[in-house]
């Protein structure tokens, strides 16, 4: 749920990166963090386990610049991907303005992708959202791996709605900013509609 402050002329939006465990959600945020100017970003916060698995969430605030005199800020969050952290995942979806679904392209992760995608729909519905109406994009990550499934196949199960989709290799940044820009644009377009 965006927050518009007429007094300080700011607008804040929340974007959540969702997807199965180890699909690269945190890597997306780390790449964005490493490649943005210090003045446009805040601290990257990672609440993770000792083995660097996300425990609760990662958080990165980003300023995009001004639109009509309003400072536009995006708060990027990731959810913990592992199945048993479902209670935490639900909490992070609260007040979401846009969703990035990060899929793991490896053939052996197809089932995990599908499970996570269904879980996203269920958890959004619990908060009163309909995935079809929430601004969202799909990222097919790990395209560089030899066991990556064809994009058509991934699309067939994870993007039947035809939302913007991007192929990515998150550690090297391929597709990372394209994904972010696409979702940010969708969120702003939704705000324009008065969402």
């Amino acid at each position, binding site marked *: 749920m965006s927050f518009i402050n007429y007094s300080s002329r700011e607008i804040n939006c929340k974007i959540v990166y969702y997807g199965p465990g180890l699909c690269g959600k945190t890597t997306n945020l780390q790449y964005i963090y490493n490649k943005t100017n210090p003045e446009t970003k805040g601290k990257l916060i990672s609440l993770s386990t000792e083995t660097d698995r996300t425990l609760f969430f990662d958080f990165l605030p980003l300023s*995009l610049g001004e639109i009509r005199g309003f400072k536009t800020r995006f708060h990027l969050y990731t959810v913990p991907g592992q199945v048993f952290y479902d209670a935490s995942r639900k909490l992070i979806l609260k007040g979401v303005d846009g969703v990035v679904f990060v899929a793991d392209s490896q053939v052996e992760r197809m089932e995990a992708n599908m499970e996570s995608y269904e879980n996203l729909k269920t958890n959004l519905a619990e908060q009163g959202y309909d995935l079809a109406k929430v601004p969202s994009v799909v990222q097919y990550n790990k395209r560089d791996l030899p066991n990556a499934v064809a994009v058509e196949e991934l699309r067939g199960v994870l993007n039947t709605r035809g939302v913007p989709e991007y192929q990515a290799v998150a550690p090297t940044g391929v597709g990372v900013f394209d994904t972010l820009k696409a979702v940010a644009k969708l969120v702003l377009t939704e705000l*324009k509609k008065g969402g």
Partner: protein
Amino acid sequence: MGTQLVMYDEEYNRINAVCDRLTKDANAKVVFLVDKNGQLISASGQTQNIDTTSLASLTAGNVAAMGGLAKLIGENEFPNQIHEGARESLYMTIVGSRVVLVVIFESSTSLGLVRLRVKKASDELAKIFEALLKKTESPGGMASPFAEISDDDIDNLFSE
């Protein structure tokens, strides 16, 4: 889905005034007001060395997690939380089920005083937010500043 939080000059000034007063009255180091979704609304006191954006996000995460725990044991939520550190402590209270008032205070300040002042401030804040919500929902409310932006405006943000 809840209503979008919109802040106007009048309410913003009133909220900041309540937070400023609470900082003094409770002898607090810092007072924050945070939306339950993690957006910082107001910060008062010695905020210079604190990453306020991160604080807001983590506060919301903490309140959300505690709310989840509360529901597991059959409570609606835990409206007040205290976290005691060696030198500084943190008191959180949920205001009007929508925002969280956070007070950071040093060990030289008594928790009793903080609780007392927070109670008064949170009643005042609850009223302001109620009025704010009414204003936002009223049909004559201010149009979204984004209603008039063009696709070009959005594209320009990403031009560099």
